[in-house]
């Protein structure tokens, strides 16, 4: 008869039993799993020493029944305990809770709901990156027009729509269409937003318009100013490419415009001679838009290192603040109702 307590059969049995302990609820396993495994190992050694393989077989038969019966019992016990806790909670609410309990419970529930919702929305929202290109615009009005324009600008009596007009030009269909074409956005966005089908020009421009933001960044000396062209999107590289392409396209358009302006100046003496002396250029007449401008790209856009939206700390802080406010209101109302029910239990039940 084999009498070695270090038998492989004992070790294998012990290992198998340790695995079978997974049948018990986690809490029970955590608390008693190790001593149970140790006890079984001791039983295995005894059985092996007493009757070898036969002893182990009998032990396994006995322990299998024990395992099935007690693991099921532990699960049922857990289930019963949870059911009991739930019933107690329900009873606590049905039997006129104190205003303090009502306030605390309602406060906790509403606060957690608001905070949970804000956290959920914050973490579910797709990340949005921003890239900004900066350009400098120098109006190039010539002759009388330039002087008048400059004086008016310095004096603060410039046309308020001047910069707006220039900004509107940047996100005009002419420039956006050029950018879309240059970057092949109709194809690439079609893959993302239209199941691979190429977007129409109007759709592409509409999408492009929705993700750009152009604003006057700062006025610098004389009549010059800086514009910031910001592009928002899920792809930081693409956002920076679009911002740079917008700045570049606007600069190209300005060059063309300047050339046209020079040609117009050359034609002007002939126009004056032919009896149109009183007809001044529109730009010079009411200090309006200069006839041309020079655009410099001051800063090229670079891919944003981290998303600008959603702003997680801000959203969570708002969730906490909003949660506290709403939970206080709901909890307060609940506490008032509970107080009323306690002071007039009959009217509450009828």
């Amino acid at each position, binding site marked *: 008869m084999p009498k070695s307590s270090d038998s492989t059969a004992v070790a294998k049995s012990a290992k198998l039993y340790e695995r079978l302990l997974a049948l*018990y609820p986690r809490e029970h396993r955590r608390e008693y799993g190790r001593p149970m495994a*140790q*006890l079984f190992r001791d*039983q295995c050694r005894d059985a092996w020493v007493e009757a070898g393989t036969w002893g182990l077989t009998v032990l396994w038969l006995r322990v299998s029944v024990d395992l099935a019966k*007690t693991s099921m019992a532990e699960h049922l016990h857990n289930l019963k305990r949870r059911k009991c806790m739930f019933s107690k909670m329900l009873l606590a609410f049905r039997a006129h809770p104190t205003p303090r309990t009502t306030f605390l419970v309602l406060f906790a529930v509403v606060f957690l709901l608001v905070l949970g919702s804000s956290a959920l929305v914050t973490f579910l929202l797709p990340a949005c990156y921003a890239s900004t290109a900066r350009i400098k615009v120098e109006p190039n009005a010539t002759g009388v027009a330039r002087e008048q324009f400059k004086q008016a600008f310095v004096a603060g009596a410039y046309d308020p729509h001047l910069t707006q007009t220039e900004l509107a030009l940047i996100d005009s269909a002419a420039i956006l269409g050029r950018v879309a074409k240059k970057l092949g956005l109709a194809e690439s966005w079609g893959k993302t937003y239209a199941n691979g089908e190429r977007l129409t020009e109007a759709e592409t421009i509409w999408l492009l318009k929705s993700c750009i933001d152009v604003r006057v960044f700062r006025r610098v000396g004389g009549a010059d100013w800086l514009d910031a062209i910001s592009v928002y999107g899920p792809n930081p590289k693409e956002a920076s490419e679009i911002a740079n392409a917008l700045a570049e396209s606007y600069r190209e358009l300005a060059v063309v415009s300047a050339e046209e302006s020079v040609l117009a100046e050359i034609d002007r003496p002939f126009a004056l001679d032919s009896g149109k002396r009183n007809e001044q250029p529109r730009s010079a007449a009411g200090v309006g838009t200069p006839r041309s401008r020079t655009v410099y790209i001051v800063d090229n856009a670079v891919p944003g290192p981290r998303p600008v939206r959603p702003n997680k700390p801000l959203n969570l802080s708002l969730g906490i603040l909003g949660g506290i406010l709403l939970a206080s209101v709901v909890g307060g109302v609940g506490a008032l109702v509970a107080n009323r029910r306690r002071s007039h239990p009959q009217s509450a039940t009828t």
Partner: protein
Amino acid sequence: MAMIDVNPENMPPLTPAVFHVLLALVEGERHGYAIMREVAESTRSRIKMGPGTLYGTVKRLVAARLIEESDRRPDPQLDDERRRYYRLTGLGQQVVKAEAQRYEQLTKLARRKRLIGQPGRAGNAGGL
């Protein structure tokens, strides 16, 4: 088992497993394996507790504060220091005593009914 009335007349009967575990701890602190052996020896191997039954019972007895885990750890050379030792609490001692008295009363009743004989007289147990 959370609320136990220690009055023997009102106390619900303990299950055999619980009673045997409590009895095994009457003489002092024991670890799981020692309890199991004690139960097997005292019942002449009629009750052999598996690890599931033993620790399920221990868990309920600890929850009912009838037994508690002892801080004692044996000398590692003599015994495995990872073993957990259990001992009866004051409440546990009262309960096991009350259960033993209840058994005693039942035994007296059975004797009066001549179901079993007087102590020391063997072989005169009545049958049904």
